[in-house]
């Protein structure tokens, strides 16, 4: 084997390589079924790697998009009914006003004591019927500030959002979200028309993107509260916070099956933007601390999109590791299959090896020949696997309605691994072939 080590494949011209490849194809072609079955191991290994990665990538992509839409530099606080006392307290003190949630005081404290807090978007929510002539919809009215869309990454699709002037003057303007707009104005463009809420009319000045479906995953604040308030959140009308406050005050009355409930909540939702991304986590901890002191009974939920994003990435990483090991195992099995067949082939072709050696083949010629055959097997298996691996996610998207994403590196990686496996598992049989004694090889039956 010394001849191999000191000048491996030295006089390997492209011409010889080409002929060696042709020769390899020829001898693989001699045993079509065997070659096909041998390559199958790699085909399925590669194809499952690509398909699984595409599905995983698609699933995590969706979650990450939702999280990113919340703004990665934001900390979102939401008021929730205190969980422990909610039901029993409601029974006993039905007529009393339930007071809970975030307050203006909280915001002031956050703004004045925590460095790095950039913008604060307060918002109030109430539920009521919204009317367009005789059409009515049970919707959510969200009182907020002019910079809300920018902060929450929600695009204004038509018209415009309300301005600081309208905020100042407590104007009767509103922006509808897409879902509500199509419900209330199924046939015409709502911009310029009016929507009635209780006794007053609001001019529609724009349409805003609907909020992405609520992000699953635990928010760091409430341990069990959850965002139950969001049941009807997909029908939204946005009006200036000042207008909402002036018209409806701070006590909201809900009529429910004959009885009614009154709640006093100063702010339903607060979005805080932190100036630097690297500061988000420390700021969120500080905010949490501060709120814990003010709200003994946990009547708020804190959501940190960045944290969710990191969690999602961690999940994805674990997912990828699991996938990677499965893939590695299946490719390993495929490689062992190839090696097994190549060893059998070497034995079967012992005589041919002897003939070639007698006709002037050097050891490295024999190594090259068998190595090329394994690489051809695993490489063509890899190509077939890539084709299948690209087709399967498309079928899944078509029939199972799941998003799948194929990143360029996935097929590239899978294919190069398959070739690599060909080399690794081909070396031993090839060396064994080359190490044979020509005399004995020629005598072999």
């Amino acid at each position, binding site marked *: 084997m*010394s*001849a191999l080590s000191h000048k491996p494949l030295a*006089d390997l*011209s492209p*011409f*010889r390589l080409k*002929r060696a490849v042709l020769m390899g194809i*020829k*001898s693989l072609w*001699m045993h079509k079924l065997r070659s096909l079955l041998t390559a199958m191991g790699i085909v399925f290994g590669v194809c499952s790697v690509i398909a699984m990665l595409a599905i995983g990538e698609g699933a995590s992509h969706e979650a990450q998009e939702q999280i990113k839409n919340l703004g990665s530099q934001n900390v979102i606080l939401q008021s929730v009914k205190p969980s422990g006392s909610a039901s029993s307290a409601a029974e006993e003190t039905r007529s009393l006003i339930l007071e809970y949630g975030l307050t203006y005081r909280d915001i002031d404290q956050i703004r004045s004591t925590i460095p790095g807090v950039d913008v604060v978007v307060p918002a109030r929510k109430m539920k009521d019927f919204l009317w367009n002539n005789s059409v009515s919809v049970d919707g959510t009215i969200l009182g907020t500030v002019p910079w809300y869309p920018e902060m929450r990454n929600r695009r204004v699709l038509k018209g415009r959002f309300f301005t600081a002037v309208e905020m100042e003057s407590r104007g009767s303007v509103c922006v509808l979200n897409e879902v509500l707009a199509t419900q209330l104005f199924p046939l015409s463009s709502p911009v310029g028309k009016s929507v009635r809420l209780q006794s007053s009319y609001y001019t529609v000045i724009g349409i805003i993107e609907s909020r992405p479906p609520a992000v699953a995953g635990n928010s760091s604040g409430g341990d069990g509260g959850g965002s139950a308030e969001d049941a009807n959140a997909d029908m939204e009308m946005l009006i200036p916070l000042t207008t909402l406050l002036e018209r409806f005050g701070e006590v909201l009355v809900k009529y429910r099956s004959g009885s009614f409930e009154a709640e006093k909540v100063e702010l339903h939702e607060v979005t805080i933007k932190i100036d630097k991304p690297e500061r988000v986590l420390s700021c969120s901890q500080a905010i949490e601390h501060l709120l814990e002191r003010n709200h003994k009974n946990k009547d708020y939920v804190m959501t940190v999109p960045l944290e969710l994003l990191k969690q999602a990435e961690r999940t994805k990483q674990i997912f990828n590791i699991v996938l990677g090991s499965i893939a590695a195992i299946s490719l390993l099995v495929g490689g062992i299959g190839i090696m097994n067949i190549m060893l059998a082939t070497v034995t079967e072709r012992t*005589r*041919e090896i*002897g*003939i*070639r*050696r*007698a*006709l*002037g*083949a*050097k*050891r*490295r*010629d024999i190594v090259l020949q068998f190595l090329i055959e394994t690489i051809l097997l695993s490489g063509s298996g890899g190509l077939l696997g890539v084709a299948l691996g690209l087709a399967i996610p498309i079928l899944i998207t078509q029939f199972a309605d799941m998003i799948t994403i194929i990143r360029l590196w996935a097929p590239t990686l899978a294919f190069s691994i398959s070739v690599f496996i060909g080399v690794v598992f081909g070396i031993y049989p090839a060396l064994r072939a080359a190490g044979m004694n*020509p*005399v004995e090889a*020629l005598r072999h039956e």
Partner: protein
Amino acid sequence: MEKALQPIIELREVKKHYQMGPVTVEALRGISLKVFPGDYISILGPSGCGKSTLLNILGCLDQPTSGAYLLEGKDVAQLDDDELSQVRGKRLGFIFQSYNLIQALTVVENIEVPLYYQGIPEKEGRKIAEKLAGQVGLGTRLDHRPTELSGGQQQRVAIARALASDPALILADEATGNLDSKSGGEILQIFDELNAQGKTLIMITHDEKMADRTPRVIRLKDGEIVVDTGKRFDISGRMSKEEEKVSAV
């Protein structure tokens, strides 16, 4: 005086031992031999006399245990595995009893194999191979596979292959052993013609009829040369005494 001819092959006291478990088998016990260009030799002997061992050594497929083997003046023992391969491919042509064609390749591709390993360009190799196939009478069967040919035809392919790299010496091991007498006769005819063209041939056989055919006959017994008729028809017209080591059987 006339210049002594440079021998193609010179064996000096070549011995070959095999270790078979605890027993050492002496396959060759000191063979000395010179082969000159244009020689046409048959090596005869009963089975187990060391014919095949001698052929393997002559063919650079095996190395002697002791003694020297000079091929065209070069000591084969000094060559490494790659150089031995090169010698086999360039200077020697093999013809086997069982033809030993590569089944996956066509007639012309089989003939090309030694040329391929010498790195001769494809087109050139193809040209040589086609010409040789024509010479052995297979010009119309270039693209047939060995399995589609008769034994005699397969052996002719093997002869063409042995000639492909224009070797100094052609070694034939029981070349007619698997053939009926008619095809065998055809093969021997080709050998005669080759020798007439000046090729050097060594045939190994146990067929006594061969002894009448070749000018020089070497008989082996128990790993030793018992008869070497020397060169009956030396090109230089000189009978070398030293070769004529005739010990009665």
